[in-house]
């Protein structure tokens, strides 16, 4: 993979987030001003109606950056693996 100037992030989705988006992952070029989890979700939700729908209920979404849970202020950088999913229901 050749890294774009702005760099890319790997997004992964699970459960109903994945179903509503109709995909389990995507690679996207990260705009320079998207530097936190909160800004990333805002930017993603503006991409199209599928994203807007899947990401509408912010309070029901959990985000992990590089496989660790991350709050809204957690930094986001090119190369990160960012997961978006509902509260977990295992066990």
């Amino acid at each position, binding site marked *: 993979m050749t890294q774009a100037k702005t760099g890319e992030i790997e997004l992964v989705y*699970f*459960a109903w987030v994945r179903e509503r988006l109709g995909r389990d992952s995507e690679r996207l070029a990260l705009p320079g001003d998207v530097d936190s989890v909160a800004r990333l979700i805002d930017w993603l939700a503006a991409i199209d109606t599928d994203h807007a729908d899947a990401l509408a209920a912010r309070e029901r979404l959990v985000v992990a950056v590089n*496989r660790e849970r991350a709050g809204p202020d957690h930094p986001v950088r090119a190369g990160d693996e960012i997961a978006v999913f*509902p*509260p977990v229901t*295992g*066990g």
Partner: protein
Amino acid sequence: MTAIRVCATPIDLASEIADFFARNEGAGAIVHFIGRMRGTDGDARIVAMELEHYPGMCEAELARIAEEVRARFSLDDARIVHRIGRMTAGDPIVLVATAARHRREAFAGAEALMDFLKTRAPFWKKEHFADGTSRWVEARESDERAAQRWVLPAESTGVKGRVDEEAP
């Protein structure tokens, strides 16, 4: 066998339990918890359940949980085996096992493993009903409260959670 495992095939309870027993000959107390798929949800009959997980993060989180609980309750050993994929009523979803010198630690450790797993490990359940509909199971607030039992007060670093609190 390793301490934690996510498996797409049915959990072999007998061999897991026998293996854990054999590895913990010196432990005075062993506790198992088995979570099974139920065939009903209220009045609705569930014909199948799908369990999805986040590969990589899930295993890492389970390993963190097992090590955290093992250290906190001075366990000799802790194990988590969790099923993924499609299953039917009665199938085991999860097995946790703890081994300790005494029963209080073994029980508390197993409960803590389950409480942390339920609230932290990235698994998601989807239920398929007899009428053809399906739905993603909602996270339960009672699981969050259960997990909060184990949170240490920041000011009392010596406290080991419920085991000490309940035997004053």
